[in-house]
């Protein structure tokens, strides 16, 4: 099964942490830090797989991939196929891209609850639930629409109607323009 999904930036700051077996907060932080330590010293052009049995127990591996400034990390055991998980990650990122149209780190920071929603449609309880990106987008859109329908007066931000960033928010060393995940590939 999949043990956890972590998204963090290249400074090691967590952007999304989801463990499918409960981990106390301190443990989560420690794991994220250890994973970051492993990842940041890996060279380019090496494999995307790392054995992390020292952190998670025997036969647990992780697959990581960098998209622009973000590390996407999936931790899983021997029941999954490394290469397939790498593609599952791709499905996740493609879905994010569809939902946020041209996703970037800030999207994930500000809307991590929505990212959770998307992830929940793909992986449930550590098992791969859905692998078709379009199906996931459909489900997430449904949820968004329904939420609006139920509460028109509430926060509109959850809808996919997006207001483009007008003032430059100069943080996380990320410019909105021209630094989308897809150009980083």
């Amino acid at each position, binding site marked *: 099964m999949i043990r956890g999904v972590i998204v963090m930036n290249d400074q090691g700051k*967590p952007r999304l942490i989801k463990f499918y077996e409960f981990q106390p907060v301190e443990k989560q932080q420690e794991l994220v830090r250890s994973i970051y330590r492993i990842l940041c010293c890996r060279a380019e052009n*090496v494999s995307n797989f790392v054995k992390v049995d020292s952190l998670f127990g025997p036969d647990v591996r992780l697959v990581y991939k960098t998209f622009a400034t973000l590390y996407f990390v999936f931790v899983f055991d021997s029941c999954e196929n490394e290469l397939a998980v790498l593609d599952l990650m791709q499905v996740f990122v493609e879905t994010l891209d569809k939902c946020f149209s041209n996703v970037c780190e800030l999207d994930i920071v500000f809307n*991590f609850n929505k990212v959770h929603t998307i992830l929940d449609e793909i992986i449930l309880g550590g098992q791969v639930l859905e*692998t078709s990106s379009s199906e996931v987008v459909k489900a997430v859109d449904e949820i968004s629409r329904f939420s609006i329908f139920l*509460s028109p007066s509430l926060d509109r931000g959850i809808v996919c109607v997006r207001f483009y960033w007008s003032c430059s928010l100069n943080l996380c060393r990320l410019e909105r323009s021209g630094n989308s995940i897809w150009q980083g590939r």
Partner: protein
Amino acid sequence: MGSQGGFGQSKEFQDLIKSIGESRSKTEEDRIVLREIETLKTRLVDPNTPKYKLKEYLIRLLYVEMLGHDASFGYIHAVKMTHDENLLLKRTGYLAVTLFLNEDHDLIILIVNTIQKDLKSDNYLVVCAALNAVCRLINEETIPAVLPQVVELLGHQKEAVRKKAVMALHRFYLRSPVSVSHLIPNFRKKLCDNDPGVMGATLCPLSDLIKADAENYKDLLVSFVNILKQVAERRLPKSYDYHQMPAPFIQIKLLKILTLLGTGDRKASEQMYTIIGDIMRKCDSTTNIGNAILYECICCVSSLHPNPKLLEAAADAISKFLKNDSHNLKYLGIDALSRLIKINPEIAEQHQLAVIDCLEDPDDTLKRKTFELLYKMTKSSNVEVIVDRMIEYMMSITDTHYKTEIASRCVELAEQFAPSNQWFIQTMNKVFEHAGDLVNIKVAHNLMRLIAEGFGEDDGTADSQLRSSAVESYLRIMGEPKLPSAFLQVICWVLGEYGTADGKYSASYITGKLSDVAEAHSTDDTVKAYAVMALMKIYSFQIAAGRIVDILPECQSLIDEMLASHSTDLQQRTYELRAILNLDARCLREIMPMDSTCEEVEIDKNLSFLDGYIQQSIEKGAQPYIPESERLGMSSITNFKSEEDHESSTHALRFEAYELPKPSPTVLASSSLVPIPEPSYSGDIFHPPTSIPSASNRGPSELKLRLDGVQKKWGRPTYSSPAPSTSTTGTTKIQSEATQRDSASNTVYTDPKTRGTSYDSRKQQVEIPPEKQKLAASLFGGVSKSEGKQSSSSQRNSKRPAKAAAPHTAAVITAQPPPDLLDLGEPSISSSVPSVDPFKPFEDLLDLTQGTTSASAGGVGATDSSDFMSLFSDMSLNVQSHDIDPVSNVSNGNGLVGVTVEKLAQQSNKGPNLKEALEKDSRVRQMGVTPSGQNPNLFKNLLG
């Protein structure tokens, strides 16, 4: 409102994230977060906060917790929010509780009710949200509360709900298999769901169920094969295509299930050959996901009942993986290789260069995977190279976890396959030196035992040689700083036992070294104790030999210091040492006999020799003995007593265990009062009927090796017997298919030139750096080492006979892989097959007779072994039945063919040469496998 920016959050939240993003240090960040926590604390409890604001606060709380701060004060608000009617708020609430709470949290009980209600909701999105929470929050006790609703939802009209209900049930199964055992038919039914998503989800629980018990699901095999076929034929909706592959994730899941069902089941395996073959053919190996499927197919093939065609396809796929530039594919290739070698050990040899490249790759992941492969393919012929490599790598890494693993693997391999005791000791020294604190202490005991026992009783000189070399190497090593404690213990013990045994080193030199060790590790009491014991042994040997003991000043000061040690154990030992110094030679010869560690000491556990005495006492009216177990309430006292007694049996403090008329003091001390846990091993000193005060011998006996329960993997039976027979035991599994070799090895060979033959030809055929090639040969070929020593002139000489032998052999054994690829396990005849190069001149000729020859001329990995295997095995059978005859026939034939092509001058001894080459080669291999005292040169380099 949240529309100020583009991210749908309030200004406040944006500012928070912005300030955290800009903070320069961890403390600054912490300050910001703590301020935020204070704000949230007040806002969340404020009854006037509007609901949509609450939602944002909760999200901010999640954010705070993600950064590692305690947000437990807000958990209850998350729980409250799950009660909300509004879907958005409800979802946020559920999200928060699934992230905040663990399934045994107290607050869960407040949510179960809400979940129950939501599972019945008309709005399927509410149901989905509840199911998400169910997957995370329901524990064993609360399963029954929601189970009926979840089962009902399996029939929900929305596929999204059905899918999640299946997953929830799967989760229940993982939590507590019993709770859903009656629902297994539902899983089977859901496999036929008309939504592919639901079907795909059902594969997850089924896969786990099958893993637990494959037999019960064999009937589903046909369905799985059918589904896989339909998926592969693109019958699923287009939306499941991914990079032009039809539903690849479902395919992979199905292949995993087929693997489980087909393992060890021939009939089941046969049913899936076709579909797996189809999929392998269809796979698009240019995409990632195509390769993922291909890899899964290889895994499947390697666990099914072997099918030559599929294995061939798998081997092809592996070679594609290994040749690819992508490290991911190389990694998978190595992994697949390690799976496939279980079925077909030859396959690794085709890829030896690729494997070596991976071994030297800077990518750590790949390297480790390759070490795993090597670990799996270790045998006695290549253990030295592999373990050397492992140790080298072990020294280079800092990760203790992996270091421990690789160290224990080194030990395991060395124990299992050690070609000689000498090598074993050298290897262990290296492992100890670099990872001594990480390996099991048993390993140290094993090592000491090996040094003590040596090769066996019948070969005294070899034993003392072994010991001297051990002593020498330890004297060299022990000066190094930061040696691990376990290793120092071994060193001290060996120096104590054998330091002065060969007379090369004087007692004062050794004792000086020992006191250095004790001084340098003044905080380690165990090492100090070992050092004191070693001193004691050396002094007593000196006294026993009638020499005058000259105690060095540093030793004296060490002794003085330890007499006042805080450790009673150390103190005790030092007092014993002092007592021993005052004894005379005769007495010490009794209690400290030289080199008696291996003496078996028989201990009469039942103390039957006392029977008469007891009988006598009872007759005189003494109380009979009540076994300890029958005495209530006394156990703690007796425990205490025995410990105490162990320390100081000469002192006045003595607790009588039971009312026994006082037996003679020696008996009391040595057997009845001191429970020796492993009596069968108690070393040299422990002779019950001795007149020496028990205090002086207690220490040594305690220090001795405790070999009980230690596995005797590398023990004597394997290596101490004379060479030919040893080889049979050492390589039984190899020999089983190659009985031929035995007969060959019995005949003596004299000509060392032929050895060079295969080595030489190897050189010609692969154009790669010699070191790599050598490594490859030693890893995969098995022989290398002794061959490598051959001088180049002999190689040159031997080239001719090999050439002459070529035509005939080629005709007969066209299928042979080139020699360096050969496994040790193959019948020995193969080893004489000449390499590619000599073939060249005759290629035309061969093509006429045998079209396939070109395959073997192709180079390293080109041979298509699996196809030819049958031919080959026939051949070896043939050889076996006719004993060596075919070989000689062969050589005659060879002579004939050779005449036509080669110069006659070389002809005269060609026939015998081939035969000899055979014999020699097998002999050489055996030497590599089982060197013994017979061939001391072999390990000269190790001894330095």
